[in-house]
C-alpha cells in the first residue's frame, strides 16, 4: 500500500481503462464463441445453439484447409526470411557511420507506412502488364516478353508475392529490435572470446547468438502474430485469389463473415487463430521471465 492515498484511488484510476478494454476486447471475444456455436447471420434476430456444426462444416471445406495451410506457410516462410535478413541488417547498422540516420529512415519505411499503402504499392510493382520487375527481367533476357511471370495471377507466384510483401513489411521492425539486442552485448564478451581463441564463427554461434536469443524470441513472436493475424496484404494484393489459392484464415473469415454475411461461420474460422495466439502468449511470458533474470 502506498501512503497518502485512499485505498480506492488505485482501482478507481484503473477502472476506466479496464472497462474499456473488457468492453471492446473481452466482450467481443466471448461473443465470437457464441456466434461460432450458433447460427447468427447479418440481419438475423435470434440465436440458436448448433453445437460444433459450424466448426465441422468449416473443417470440411477444402478452401478452409487450404487457407489454414497458407497461414502457416506464409508465416513460417516470411519469419525465416525476416530473421536472417534482420540479423544481417542489424550487424551492418550496429556501428555508427555517416548517413546512418538517413539509411535507417529508408529501412524503416516499409514498417511505418500503413501496410495497406505498401501493399497497393506492391500491387502496382507486380502488375500483370506494367510490372517494373518484369520489365527488368525482360531486359536482362531472363524471361521472354510474351511469357512474363504473372506475379499475382498464378497461384505459386501469388503465394511467393504475399510472402515477400510480408517479409518486406516486417523486416524493419525485426531489425530495430535485433539492433537493440546486438548493441546490448557488452564489448568485452567477444574480446574475451577472441582471447580465449575463438574464431569468427565460433564466437558468433557459440557466444553472441545464444546471448541474443531472448531478443530474437521477442522479435520472432511479435512477427508471428503480426503475420499470422494479418488479412490486409492478402486482401489488397490478391483478394485471396487466384481462386482462393492465397486465402489465409483472417481473410477467409472476412470474406465469409462480412462479405458473405455468415457471421457464425466467419466467427468459427477466426477462432482458429486462438490456439496459436495462446501458444505465442505463453512463449512470450516464458521468454520475458528468463530474459529479465540476465
Amino acid at each position, binding site marked *: 500500500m502506498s501512503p497518502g492515498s485512499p485505498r480506492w484511488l*488505485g482501482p478507481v484510476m484503473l477502472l476506466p481503462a479496464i472497462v474499456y478494454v473488457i468492453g*471492446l476486447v473481452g466482450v467481443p471475444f466471448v461473443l465470437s464463441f457464441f456466434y461460432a456455436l450458433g447460427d447468427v447471420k447479418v440481419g438475423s434476430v435470434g440465436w440458436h445453439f448448433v453445437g460444433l456444426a459450424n466448426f465441422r462444416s468449416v473443417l470440411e471445406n477444402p478452401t478452409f484447409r487450404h487457407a489454414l495451410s497458407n497461414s502457416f506457410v506464409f508465416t513460417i516462410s516470411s519469419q525465416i526470411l525476416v530473421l536472417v535478413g534482420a540479423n544481417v541488417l542489424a550487424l551492418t547498422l550496429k556501428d555508427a557511420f555517416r548517413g546512418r540516420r538517413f539509411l535507417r529512415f529508408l529501412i524503416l519505411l516499409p514498417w511505418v507506412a500503413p501496410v495497406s499503402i505498401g501493399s497497393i504499392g506492391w500491387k502496382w510493382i507486380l502488375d500483370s502488364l506494367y510490372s517494373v520487375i518484369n520489365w527488368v527481367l525482360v531486359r536482362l533476357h531472363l524471361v521472354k516478353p510474351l511469357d512474363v511471370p504473372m506475379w499475382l495471377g498464378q497461384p505459386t507466384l501469388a503465394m511467393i508475392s504475399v510472402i515477400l510483401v510480408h517479409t518486406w513489411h516486417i523486416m524493419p521492425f525485426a531489425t530495430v529490435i535485433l539492433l537493440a539486442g546486438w548493441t546490448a552485448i557488452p564489448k568485452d564478451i567477444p574480446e574475451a572470446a577472441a582471447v580465449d581463441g575463438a574464431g*569468427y564463427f565460433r564466437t558468433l554461434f557459440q557466444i553472441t547468438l545464444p546471448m541474443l536469443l531472448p531478443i530474437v524470441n521477442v522479435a520472432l513472436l511479435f512477427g508471428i502474430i503480426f503475420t499470422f493475424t494479418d488479412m490486409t496484404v492478402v486482401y489488397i494484393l490478391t483478394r485471396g485469389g487466384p481462386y482462393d489459392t492465397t486465402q489465409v484464415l483472417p481473410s477467409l473469415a472476412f470474406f465469409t463473415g*462480412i462479405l458473405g454475411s455468415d457471421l457464425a461461420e466467419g466467427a468459427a474460422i477466426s477462432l482458429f487463430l486462438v490456439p496459436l495466439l495462446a501458444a505465442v502468449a505463453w512463449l512470450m511470458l516464458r521468454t520475458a521471465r528468463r530474459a529479465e533474470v540476465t
Partner: protein
Amino acid sequence: MSDGRPAGALERVLKRGILLAFSVALAFPFYWMAITSFKRTTDLYNLKNNPFLFSEPPTLEHLRLLLRETLFLRWFANTCFAGLLVAVITLALAMPAAYALARLTGRWGEQLGIAIFLTYLVPPTLLFIPLSRIVANLGLQDSIWAIVVVYPSFTIPFATWLLMGFFKAIPPELEDAAMVDGLTRFQAFVRMVVPISFSGIVTVVIFAFTLVTQEFVYALTFISSAAHQTVGVGVPIYLVRGDVYYWGSLMAACLIASLPIGILYNLFLDRFIAGFTVGSVK
C-alpha cells in the same frame, strides 16, 4: 569485428554493400510511388518506354486529380479527426491506469500490467466479426465515430504499458515531497508527474495517431461508404473506377500517406523500441 578489433577494409566494404542493397530493396516501392506520381499517363502505360526514365516531361496532373476530384482530402480529414480523438481518449484512460499500476498496486499490479499488455496481442481479425454487430447495435455503423470508439481498445493497452515504464522510472521522492507539502496523491500525480512525463505523452500521441492511419480491418468492416473512410482504406479500395486503378493518382496518394508518418517515426524510434523490449523484459 566480433573480436573487438577494428574492421578491415574488406569487411567495411562488404557491410556497406549489404546495407545499400537492403536499403534499396526496402525503400524501392516508395521511390517507385514517387516516379509513378509524376509520370504522364501516356508515358506510364507505354510499354515501350523505360519505366525508370521520364520519356515525357513530368506532370502534376495526378496530384491535381487526387486532390480535386477524389475524396482523398476527405479521407485525410477523417483520419486526422479520428487520430486526434483517439489520442485524447487513450491518454485520458491510459495515464491514470499506468500511474495506478506503477505506484499504487504492488504485486497484483504487475500481473495486471502483463494481462493488459496481452490484450494488445488479441488481433482485430479475431474480434471484428462480433464487433461489427456491436457497432451496428450502437448505431455507429458507417461512421467515423465507430473508429473513434473502437480504436482505443488497442491503443490503451500499449499506451498503458509504455507509460507504466515511464512512471516507474520517475523517482517516487518527487511525489513524496509533494505530499509532505500537503498535496493528495492524485494532485501530486496531476501536478508533478504529468508535466514531467511530457515526452512519454507525446510518444503516446504519436503512437495513437500512427495506429489510426495504419489500421485497416476495422475501418474496412465498420465503414461502408467512401466519404466516411480513412486514408488507409480509401486509398487502396476507392481510387478505382470500375475495374481500372488510377495508378498515377493512387501512387501520389500513397506517397502523401507514407512520408509524414515515416519522418515522425524516425524521430521517435527509440521510445518505441523501449516500449517493445523493455516492457516485455521488465
